[in-house]
């Protein structure tokens, strides 16, 4: 499923807020077609890492390559070209509140393509259905949706441009266990059928077991270890051990 060129290649990343160092000398590769779960304690900079990769936070130093292009070297047009190849799902969906769900999905379509209004509506309808929203959700406003539906709508917007890669920031946080499990299945199904690469920040051990091909643990200001669930279970760093062998972890594995 994966080939050798990483879609994201991070080397020596340093991020700071004032005097507070968030990442120091952080390296990470994300392979094409994989689901990478990023875990770490609160305040270890998981979301900061995601926001740095997509360009919302400027790193102090280090190199971030996406699709083989170094982000810092790109001009505005180059960035736009890269940005149209990824989608981002923020924690609460981050839908535009003055637009309906379908119109939210059409925002990137109208910005980046010259599709006709009819094709855009049809394409929005396809995405709404793909993420498992009912057909009558199309003309609803974000305030009329539940938290889980907002996340699905946010995912539909992230998928609008048929991106090669999606960034998910805690996709299952705030969902009930059934909703969370459904969302996991949805991500896995879409990842398979659309051939997506998924970069997922999560706290949800069930998600890690259910859908992640590899897991990256953020600790001590860097990526402590990357690997499959087996690697995690064998790792002897105290935090990693506690995380993957704690009572909640055992519950997730069913032991």
């Amino acid at each position, binding site marked *: 499923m994966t080939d050798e060129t990483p879609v994201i290649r991070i080397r020596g990343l340093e991020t700071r807020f004032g005097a507070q160092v968030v990442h120091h000398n952080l390296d990470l590769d994300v392979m094409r077609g994989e689901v990478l779960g990023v875990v770490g304690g609160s305040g270890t900079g998981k979301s900061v890492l995601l926001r740095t990769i997509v360009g919302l936070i400027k790193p102090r130093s280090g190199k971030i390559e996406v699709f083989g292009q170094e982000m810092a070297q790109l001009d505005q047009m180059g960035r*736009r*070209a890269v940005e*149209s*190849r990824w989608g981002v799902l923020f924690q609460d969906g981050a839908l535009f509140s003055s637009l*309906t769900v*379908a*119109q939210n999905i*059409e925002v990137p*379509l*109208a910005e*980046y*393509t*010259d*599709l*006709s209004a009819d*094709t855009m*509506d*049809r*394409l*929005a*309808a*396809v*995405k*709404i*259905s*793909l993420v498992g929203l009912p*057909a*009558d959700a*199309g*003309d609803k406003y974000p305030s009329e949706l539940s938290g889980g539906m907002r996340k699905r709508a946010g995912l539909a917007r992230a998928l609008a*441009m*048929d991106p090669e890669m999606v960034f998910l920031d805690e996709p299952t946080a705030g969902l009930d266990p059934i909703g969370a499990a459904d969302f996991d299945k949805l991500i896995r199904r879409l990842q398979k*059928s*659309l051939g997506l690469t998924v970069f997922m920040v999560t706290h949800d051990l069930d998600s890690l077991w259910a859908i992640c091909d590899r897991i990256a643990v953020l600790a001590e200001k860097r990526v402590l270890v990357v690997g499959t669930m087996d690697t995690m279970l064998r790792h002897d760093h105290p935090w990693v051990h506690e995380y993957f062998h704690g009572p909640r972890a055992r519950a997730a594995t069913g032991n």
Partner: protein
Amino acid sequence: MEETNAKLGSVTTGDSDGLLVLTVGGCWNIGGAEKLESSLGAVTPRPGQSVRLDLEPLESIDTAVALVLRKTIKRLESKGHTTELVGARPAHAAFIDLVSTNDRPTVCHPPKENPVTAVIEHVGSGTYGALQEARNVIGFLGMTLMAIARCIVHPSRIRWTSLISHIEHSGLNALPIVGLLSFLIGIVMAYQGADQLRRFGSEIFVVNLIGISMLRELGTLLTAILVAGRSGSAYTAQIGSMTAHEEVDAMRTLGLSPMEVLVVPRVIALVVALPILAFFASMVGLLGGGIMAWVELGIRPALFIDRLSSALTMSTFIVGMVKAPRYSPSLLPWWVATKAFGLQVVQKALAG
């Protein structure tokens, strides 16, 4: 509109045994989907002719391209042509299936309103809103006065730190903008007033004009409007953000009165700060007028001050200053504050 990363493949038409063969090849993606649709749309088979869509040379596909292919097939079938899809790779066929199963009628946009009824509705809801707002403003004024009265009876309830900080933010920090505006108004009045008064040969009365209007009316009015806009919107943003973050709810569960914690210090701060600001504005306005009178009419500062003292009485000054707190406390800034954010939100948050 621009096409970023648009991939354009090829569309060729051919004929085989009376069959119209449409061959879609190369790489297509969402950026080129519109072009693909128009290329396919330009193809018009003879009536009753069957169409074969050959996807054998197609190298890449996405949901937009799959949707265009599906739309084309539907269009041809609705015109009575039989169609067949051949040569699609399994992955591409799966994509077209995925889109086909998910392509369902969906309402995407809110219904368009009738412009005539929309105007009527707008007027109606505007009137109703204005009445409701009037009631809310009066209610809020009452609540504020009650809270202030409670604070006067129990002075220990006054939040001094907060009060001083608001005096700094709404008063001290407003000095530059208030000063700038009244200085410029002073200059304009001197210049324009001199222009008119010169016709009667009574340029010297420009001093009376500036002095009386600045001290009696303009200094206070300019300050009140500026502070209403400046601090009113700042208060709205602060309290609105606190409401959104449930801070106001938290206060109430902790037994704190949001009116006393949030509203009273701001109102008292404005009552204290406005007269001072208004005085400052008047003085800077006189300064601007004086400079212009000197430059334009040659009225020297000593003469200016002399004329000023004969034109003004103490009551002119006092009338202006008395107006300041009357303009200030609740009406102007709170009107702006509540209007900008929608009184309901702030008030509901505060009153519960």
